[in-house]
């Protein structure tokens, strides 16, 4: 009997319990509906829960230990005496034997496994039977226990609903777990990193040339300022120089000028820009934009233009960010009360005057919040910079030169050497923590601004 079959059987038993409990509870209704506390079906659910949940929990636990029990049984047999002592080889033979016991047609790789296979089949069958029996017993016991508790005034609904609530609460706790997971994984590695490199050097040093060489317990070449600069240069300066004007003007045009028809079509089209995966942008930047920019730079006489210029990555990232800026600006402009616009128009202001002098200033906090969110998104963006920005840690403001970013270096550091204790791996986590903190702060500030602004007009 396979565990799937057992699960199905238990589910079936649960169903039967449900039906019986429901029928029994149905008989309680003798003196009108007010005489019972809960609907019969709740009694059904209550009993079914008792029948199924303990049995399934048991099965899960049993299934995780039963294979081990099976293996011990096999190892106890005289046939197993000839097995090699090396645990890995032994494990391989045993696991092949187990596979063979399930599917005799498998290609045999280790002959020792053939003899053991029947033993395994035997042991596994035995333990599966034991598990199944125990599960069924639990199922019956649980069901019977629940059954005895059914009474007209038994609050089955309350009990069932409490279980559901518990489930809901558990689901929301996962968010906390995930956050804790992130913080813990980043902080532990970062602390180890700071044992090798002083935080001061990491945050303020300008020499980024990471290596695994550890001299006197200190590693060098981990001054991350060039990375921070590159990140800011690409994500917060160049990308925003593209995204803010285009996004803002698009939002203004779509909210204030465009006919409903145009708006209906153009808005989703702009949103598509946000739906294109970043690896596609990265490829586009590397394949098309970067070479074009390079030849453009060469054409206007910039000699040392690099093919992976900050500009190429920044431009494409800016385009990716347009929909973020425009939808935030769109929301903010729409949130400005119409009376404000009417007030200006009634003074004889033209539309553009109204927009420039009244709407945008009034929507500014919202727009700023949106831009901050966009910046946080841009500096955390990885694939575009990995594919189109460079790897040289330059401190330069020349947009045609190559700079590198925090995310690029994280990928570089972690996709090569994967040893968990080298300073380079740890540095990736320190960079990750920095990035995490910065984006977090940006978001908190941005959300705060947006919230205060929303309140101002409500």
């Amino acid at each position: 009997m396979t565990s799937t079959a057992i699960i199905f059987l238990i589910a079936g038993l649960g169903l039967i319990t449900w039906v019986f409990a429901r029928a029994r509870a149905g008989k309680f209704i003798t003196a009108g509906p007010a005489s019972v506390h809960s609907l019969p079906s709740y009694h059904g659910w209550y009993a079914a829960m008792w029948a199924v949940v303990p049995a399934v929990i048991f099965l899960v636990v049993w299934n995780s230990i039963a294979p081990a029990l099976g293996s011990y049984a096999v190892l106890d047999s005289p046939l197993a005496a000839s097995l090699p002592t090396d645990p890995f080889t032994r494990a391989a033979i045993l696991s092949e034997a187990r596979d063979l016991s399930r599917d005799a047609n498998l290609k045999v790789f280790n002959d020792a496994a053939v003899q053991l296979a029947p033993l395994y089949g035997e042991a596994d069958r035995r333990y599966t039977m034991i598990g199944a029996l125990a599960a069924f017993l639990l199922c019956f016991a649980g069901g019977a226990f629940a059954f005895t508790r059914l009474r007209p005034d038994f609050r089955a609904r309350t009990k069932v609903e409490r279980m559901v609530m518990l489930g809901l609460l558990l689901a929301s706790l996962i968010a906390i777990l995930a956050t804790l997971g992130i913080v813990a994984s980043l902080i532990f590695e970062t602390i180890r990193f700071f044992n090798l490199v002083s935080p001061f050097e990491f945050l303020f040093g300008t020499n980024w040339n990471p290596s695994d060489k550890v001299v006197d317990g200190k590693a060098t070449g981990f001054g991350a300022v060039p990375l921070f600069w590159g990140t800011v240069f690409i994500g917060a300066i160049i990308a925003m120089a593209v995204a803010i004007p285009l996004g803002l003007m698009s939002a203004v045009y779509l909210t204030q000028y465009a006919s409903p028809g145009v708006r209906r079509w153009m808005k989703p089209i702009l949103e598509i820009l946000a739906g294109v995966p970043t690896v596609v942008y990265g490829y586009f930047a590397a394949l098309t934009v970067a070479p074009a920019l390079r030849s453009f730079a060469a054409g206007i006489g910039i000699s040392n233009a690099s093919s992976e210029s900050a500009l190429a990555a920044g431009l494409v990232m800016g385009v990716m960010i347009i929909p973020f800026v425009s939808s935030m600006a769109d929301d903010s402009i729409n949130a400005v009360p119409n009376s404000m616009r009417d007030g200006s128009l009634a003074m004889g202001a033209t539309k553009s005057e109204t927009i420039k002098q009244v709407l945008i200033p009034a929507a500014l906090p919202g727009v700023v919040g949106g831009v901050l969110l966009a910046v946080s998104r841009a500096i955390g963006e990885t694939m575009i910079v990995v594919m189109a920005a460079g790897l040289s840690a330059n401190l330069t403001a020349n947009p045609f030169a190559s700079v590198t970013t925090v995310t690029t270096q994280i990928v570089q550091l972690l996709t090569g050497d994967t040893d968990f204790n080298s300073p380079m791996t740890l540095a990736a986590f320190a960079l990750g923590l920095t990035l995490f903190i910065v984006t977090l702060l940006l978001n908190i500030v941005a959300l705060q601004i947006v919230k205060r602004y929303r309140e101002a007009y409500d």
Partner: protein
Amino acid sequence: MTESAPNTKMSARDVKVFYGEKQAINGVSIDIDMDNVVAFIGPSGCGKSTFLRTLNRMNDTIASARVEGDITLDGENIYSSKMDVVQLRARVGMVFQKPNPFPKSIYDNVAYGPRIHGLAPNKAELDQIVENSLVRAGLWNEVKDRLTESGTALSGGQQQRLCIARAIAVDPEVILMDEPCSALDPIATAKIEELIHELRGRYAIVIVTHNMQQAARVSQKTAFFHLGNMVEYGDTSDIFTNPREERTRDYITGRYG
């Protein structure tokens, strides 16, 4: 009432307004002259605001709205294609029900109109215009020491007076007020009413109100609207003491509304 009176500033002839399919104004004709404050009264939803907004084409901003009939300002059709709506609105100012100062300083609120219309060649003249407007709106003494504060930081009544100052700063010819006191307390209301008294004669003034006492207090002429029709138009004293129409009487005596 089909011929214009001699001192007529604006006149409407058989104006109909539609919101999409729905007709909100069914042919209204009226003359507005320079000497009198005109009050529009009527039950909620009768079309007072709608008609008022046709007078400076503010209903252009509502996509579904459509206007038929003629409205003239100094004899010029304001719905003709030759009419520049930006200029029209500068000449026909508007004050709204809810005070809506711009989120700018008090000074900038008032200076906004003169600036966009280029009414002041230099800073000194602009200062003068701002000051005059605030003085006339009866707000100067209260705000003269804090002109750089935000207009939204004022009290409701002050905000509404600021909006009036803002409207008169562009030196309009007509001022339309749509229930300018409905968001205000009695003291603020009294101030605005006083202000309207003072502005009378210099501008043609139209005020929409749902408060009959207010209409009686501030206006010389009153138009009573009902279900999209202008039922009666005449001297305020006549309308309130001796209405010609049954419906007007019912409304004035509070039978409905």
